[in-house]
């Protein structure tokens, strides 16, 4: 008998019901998008809408990645990130305006402060065993107060950084700007390259799975997946190209999302997050350093919070006492709507991205149809609840 028998890959038949279940949120996203496009007589489909969708929700994607890692470890959350965004914004404003520091030094200083905070928070949670949401609740109270009191030196309670063009260029604005309505070539090139990469990755994955004898989808499913993925990317980039070019913040978002997609799906440490969330005791007994995972989750959250703080500061060109309000809720909602389990161990970056986009589309759509701001909050609340209930019910049937 040969030792290296390569198992024959089984082909997973696509059955419509499970396909629908797996991609339910995606389907909801498409339906909601179409709904609002009709309601706004096509305004949702204009280049500017794509641009604002990305600019307005950049922080949700960035914080969502960090929150995902925290939630994976067992439904733990970070309530402090919104307040930390406010504090870091205030500090950044002070550095650049009051002390006249350059953009580079300020960015490094902010990152250092964020990381130092993350180490402290992670240590309290992982090694002292303070429940995460209490530790971060304390931060939620304290850092908003600290940020506001730093800003209270100015009469308007805000520090404008609009003179520091370097800083603004790094985190906001548009790359290779062209007039609106003109097709931006670099943007289109980037879109086509990205689309090609997506197709490449899908088929390379398929080849690897076939070689190792893992279960694969039907060929036609992978073809459909790559065609749709590529089409969406090209469409979005086409619209952005018409709106003036690549929003700088999109590169930050894409960078963060790709790095975290890689970490969660391809690395050992990423798998450890899922294991800890699935069964922390079993993970510990299998030799996973569970405390270190908890520590990293919160350190990482603080790191991403610093990045989100800088994009927020650049977007508003000023540090405000209200900056970052409810950011934690948006990040949590994005994760939960995107199918991240509230009890840990399940969830993906792709799901979170779909969740964040769905919430962004709903927000933008409600804004464009002039829905009363109060009803917007009500809708947001019910979307969150409906998403979780849906998630729980669909899992119940699988068992």
């Amino acid at each position, binding site marked *: 008998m040969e030792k290296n028998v390569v198992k024959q890959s089984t082909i997973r038949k696509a059955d419509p019901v499970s396909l629908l279940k797996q991609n339910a949120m995606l389907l909801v996203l498409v339906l909601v998008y179409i709904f609002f496009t009709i309601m706004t007589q096509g305004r949702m489909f204009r280049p500017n809408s794509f641009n604002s969708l990305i600019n307005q929700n950049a922080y949700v994607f960035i914080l969502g990645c960090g929150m995902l890692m925290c939630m994976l470890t067992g*439904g733990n*959350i970070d309530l402090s990130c919104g307040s930390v965004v406010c504090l870091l914004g205030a500090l950044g404003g002070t550095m650049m305006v009051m002390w006249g520091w350059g953009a580079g030094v300020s960015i490094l200083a902010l990152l250092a402060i964020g990381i130092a905070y993350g180490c402290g928070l992670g240590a*309290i949670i992982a090694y*002292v*065993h*303070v*429940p995460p*949401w*209490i*530790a971060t*609740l*304390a*931060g*939620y*109270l*304290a*850092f*908003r*107060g*600290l940020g*506001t*009191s730093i800003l*209270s030196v100015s009469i308007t309670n805000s520090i404008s950084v609009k003179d520091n063009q370097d800083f603004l260029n790094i985190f906001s604005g548009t790359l290779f700007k062209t007039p609106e309505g003109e097709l931006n070539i670099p943007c289109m090139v980037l879109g086509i390259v990205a689309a090609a990469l997506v197709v490449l990755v899908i088929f390379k994955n398929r080849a690897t799975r076939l070689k190792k004898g893992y279960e694969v989808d039907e060929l036609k499913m992978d073809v459909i997946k790559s065609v749709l993925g590529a089409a969406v990317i090209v469409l979005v980039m086409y619209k952005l190209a018409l709106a003036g070019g690549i929003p700088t913040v999109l590169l930050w978002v894409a960078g963060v999302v790709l790095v975290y997609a890689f970490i969660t799906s391809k690395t050992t440490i990423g798998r450890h997050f899922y294991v800890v969330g699935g069964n922390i005791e079993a993970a510990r007994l299998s030799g996973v350093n569970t405390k270190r995972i908890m520590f990293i989750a919160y350190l990482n959250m603080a790191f991403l919070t610093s990045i989100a703080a800088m994009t927020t500061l650049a977007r508003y060109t000023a540090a405000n006492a209200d900056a970052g309000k409810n950011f934690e*809720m948006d990040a*949590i*909602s994005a994760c*939960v709507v995107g199918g991240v389990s*509230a*009890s840990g161990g399940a969830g993906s970056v792709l799901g979170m991205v779909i969740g964040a986009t769905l919430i962004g589309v709903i927000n933008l759509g409600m804004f464009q149809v002039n829905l*009363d*701001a*109060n*009803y*917007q*909050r*009500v809708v*947001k*609340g*019910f979307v*969150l*609840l409906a998403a*979780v*209930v849906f998630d*729980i*019910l669909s899992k119940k049937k699988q068992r």
Partner: protein
Amino acid sequence: MNENKMSVGAFFQKYTMIIALVVVVIFFAILTGGKNLLPGNINNLISQNGYVFVLAAGMLLCILTGGNIDLSVGSVVCFTAAVGCVLMDNNVNMWIAVLAMLAIGLLIGTFQGFWIAKLHVPAFIATLSGMYAFRGFSNVVLGGYQVSVTNETFLNLFGGGAKCYVPDFIRQAMGTTGKPNLTCLAIGIVAVLIFIGLKVRKILIQKKLNIHQSIPAQLATTAIISAVAIWLTLKLASHKGFPTVLIWIGLVLGIYQYITTKTAIGRHLYAVGGNEKATALSGVKTRNVYWFAYASIGLMAGLAGILTAARAKGIDPTYAEGYEMDAIASCFIGGASAYGGVGKVSGMIVGAVLMGVINQGMNIVGVDSNFQKVVKGLVLLLAVVFDVLSKRQKR
């Protein structure tokens, strides 16, 4: 009979928060030159924090079930108050408005409890969505504006306006006026007598059942609590009298003390928090316990809505923001475990008073309101770190 001797270390561990409270009161008394102990400020301490006691009582039950919280209470308080104020503004009978507020609170609590108990939606998500939704609904009900309450009976009864004190019947009967307020003194003395009676009864029962508890220690705590109560009564009597809001606080705390210590459902709350699976296997319908906890905090949010509307003589869509944090912090500072199963009403009271004293002290000293938030956060963190570390030593 061998009595449980308590070491000095264990004594400090058990009464840390009370010691901390005394230290903080003395600290601010020195800092403010005794201003924080003036009768007027003692009175304000109670009236300003009425909602904290009420909400924290409800929150305690949720936390007992396993560290679950209710993030929606701030929004629900605002919503119930909004409905009540709008009803009264349209000349609806005050009692119907009050009943409506309580009923709406209970209904919301039951609704959220349904998702949590029956569908296993994580509590913080179900209540997070409530927090969004009911804040929005309050805005809709109020049309974005402030609605004021002018109904005198409502204000007097629930602790708002200038006359929200129990009238001095005794002096009225005697036909005199002045201070101290004799009715207030009488209420205080009767309350203390009832308390002492209950304690003595408890000690007698312990003796009969041969439960070994240190009798001198119990008598000492009873004496200290009675002394504090009498001191409070004297302070209140020399101010304007017995604030009506204290009646509601006392009622709620009494009922929750009874529920947590004397009833089956109360014990089930602790059991579920301690070990849900074991509790379910012992025949307790654990999901109903969750439902009860969330329905109860809904009702308390309704009552807190009444108190808030009365105290502020109206309601604004931005009122009651962050109330959930106050209630949660009070429970944790008062020694409730963030993992459930541990926590007492008496501890929660100490936690709420400690937070109140710190807030008021900082106000009198004139600390910037932003720094007050920082201190609040640090106090919360310290309390929980201390709790976690002291429990670790026991093991």
